[in-house]
């Protein structure tokens, strides 16, 4: 049974008011955009609570809200590893160890940091791959939103694409990064306040947490897993065959935790850009820590609905979630199903608007990261250096238009040829997997050279590709999902294959960078690297903060709470 959401007049009113505010913020910020640094860096003037919530919200796109709820239904509470093993430790590491270099070096983007630390080719490799990736991600977000609206409320696919793209375009074109950041904070509150009643009603309906635990037992046993698999996060991770994710603790901690999450949260300009817009070094360092607070609790908002939905679906014999093309429940429909099921007119408008807001947050984040990297790292570096600042501001505005048009093109491709998008995401995975090794060596080992970094990255990317060609998940035909050279290594699941691929890519990049650096001469002196490498940088002054507000202390508290959460749901 497909889900339909019927919007009443009051729901449309809420939607309209929301978009009025979104656009209004763009118009109100227009006059503050005087130079390129206002447009791309918000003039480094934003208070930490704002950048912190934007840091979180830029990542709170479709993958997060729809995807994590789907994983909650598919894998249960093990999905929390994406938060309590993945995101939180990486965010604390970024705040304490990496932010001083990003912010202190006055680099305007992550690729620019690579240029200052290593050389032009390393920056070029990162800037170009990142620019292409973000713009396609933005297109995928747009496509997913339009597809969802088409299914749920029967709006026309192309009208959705153009209207949503236009709204994002207007507010970024006018207000640049500040506008994106302000709107992300608005979206953050929209999502939290729009979905909390959903979780409350769902949990009440299922009979509370202990009733939910009981109702998840048959979900696990009917699929051949131990009774508590859906409600215990670590208990069943000894062997990949014991859990629905098909991964063991080592792949989880090293692959997802260390390589992929650190790689994403610490080096992806989409999120780091938010912290770089903060008004001072201490605000920049507090940004990821402020984000870590709500992030720790997000499993309640995004994973719990998935668990509730699958329990109710199982109890009702499959009547809660629609059935997908493969005969399994359509996990991506968890949040839409719950909206349609529990929310009366009025609140439905709020929840539906929150859903749209999450998709647009993902898209806008990508667009602002793209226009900055394009303008500073590609256009100013290779195409038109030494132009006036107002020229780059002009370029930034038009890069926004161009970026959004390409996103629409990407959405078109995604709607016509699903395989091309899978292929692109695969290639992005190859490029991303080794990145964290380069940054780690760059920041903590002054001997790492430009050649070492560049060939290490290329080597890591090739290693990822080779590993993918040689490995396959059980039951998957060799091809785009792996094994296209020869399915030599078999994994229990694609996720396991993916985590090991990341580990292999990271290790290759790490070793190659060290080896090549030892063989090549340093091109940057100790003086050049001041502010870019840990051992050559004076410790950041704690800016007269009391001890309880210092990043190291807050970071430790955050980590202790995270350990506590892991133990609580062990």
């Amino acid at each position, binding site marked *: 049974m497909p889900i339909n959401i019927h919007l009443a007049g009051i729901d449309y009113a809420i939607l309209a008011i929301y978009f009025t505010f979104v656009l209004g*913020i763009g118009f109100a910020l227009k006059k503050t955009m005087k130079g390129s640094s206002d447009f791309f860096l918000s003039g480094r003037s934003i208070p930490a609570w704002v950048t912190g919530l934007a840091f979180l919200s830029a990542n709170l796109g479709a993958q997060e809200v729809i995807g994590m709820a789907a994983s909650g239904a598919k894998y249960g509470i093990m999905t929390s590893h994406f938060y309590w093993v993945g995101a939180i430790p990486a965010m604390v590491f970024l705040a304490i160890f990496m932010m001083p270099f990003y912010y202190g070096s006055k680099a305007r983007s992550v690729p620019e940091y690579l240029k200052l630390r290593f050389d032009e080719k390393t920056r070029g490799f990162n800037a170009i791959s990142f620019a292409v990736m973000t713009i396609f991600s933005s297109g995928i977000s747009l496509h997913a939103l339009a597809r969802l609206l088409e299914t749920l409320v029967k709006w026309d696919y192309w009208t959705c694409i153009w209207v949503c793209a236009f709204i994002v375009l207007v507010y970024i074109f006018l207000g640049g990064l500040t506008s994106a950041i302000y709107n992300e*904070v*608005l979206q953050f509150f929209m999502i939290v306040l729009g979905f909390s009643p959903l979780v409350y009603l769902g949990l009440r*309906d299922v009979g509370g947490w202990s009733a939910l635990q009981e109702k998840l037992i048959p979900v696990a046993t009917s699929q051949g897993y131990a009774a508590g698999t859906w409600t215990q996060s670590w208990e069943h991770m000894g062997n990949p065959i014991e859990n629905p994710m098909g991964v063991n603790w080592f792949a989880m901690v090293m692959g997802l935790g260390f390589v992929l999450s650190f790689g994403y949260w610490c080096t992806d300009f989409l999120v780091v850009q938010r912290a770089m817009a903060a008004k001072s070094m201490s605000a920049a360092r507090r940004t990821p820590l402020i984000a870590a607070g709500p992030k720790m609790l997000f499993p309640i908002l995004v994973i719990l609905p998935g668990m509730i939905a699958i329990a109710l679906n199982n109890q009702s014999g499959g009547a809660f979630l629609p059935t997908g093309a493969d005969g399994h429940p359509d996990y991506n429909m968890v949040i839409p199903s719950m909206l349609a099921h529990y929310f009366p007119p009025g609140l439905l408008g709020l929840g539906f608007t929150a859903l749209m807001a999450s998709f647009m947050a993902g898209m806008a984040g990508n667009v602002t990261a793209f226009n900055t990297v394009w303008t500073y790292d590609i256009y100013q570096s290779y195409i038109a250096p030494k132009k006036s600042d107002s020229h780059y501001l002009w370029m930034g505005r038009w890069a926004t238009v161009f970026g959004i048009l390409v996103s629409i093109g990407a959405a078109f491709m995604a709607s016509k040829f699903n395989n091309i998008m899978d292929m692109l995401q695969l290639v992005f995975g190859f490029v991303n997997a080794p990145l964290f090794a380069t940054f780690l060596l760059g920041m903590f080992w002054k001997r790492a050279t430009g050649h070492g970094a560049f060939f290490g990255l290329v080597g890591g990317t090739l290693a990822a590709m080779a590993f993918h060609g040689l490995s396959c998940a059980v039951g998957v035909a060799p091809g785009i999902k792996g094994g296209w050279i020869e399915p030599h290594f078999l994994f229990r699941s694609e996720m396991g294959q993916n985590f090991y691929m990341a580990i292999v890519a990271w290790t290759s990049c790490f070793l190659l960078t060290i080896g090549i650096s030892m063989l090549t001469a340093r091109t940057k002196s100790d003086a050049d690297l001041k502010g870019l490498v840990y051992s050559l940088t004076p410790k950041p002054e704690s800016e007269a903060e009391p001890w309880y507000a210092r990043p190291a202390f807050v970071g430790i508290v955050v980590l202790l709470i995270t350990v506590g959460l892991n133990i609580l749901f062990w």
Partner: protein
Amino acid sequence: MNFDLRLPIGLMFSIFGGILTIYGLISGPEIYARSLGINVNLWWGGGLLVFGLLMLFFAFRKPRD
């Protein structure tokens, strides 16, 4: 300079809160069957109104962060 972000947040959620509260007061009980018989518009609308007004209060009390 940039304006205080608490202003639009406070204003928007006060409006949402106001609309939902009023709608909760005038709507009949039949639409609340799906929300387990709870008048969520009234309750949650009230909550949003309080949140929005608090944001506005802090925005006006301290002009700049």
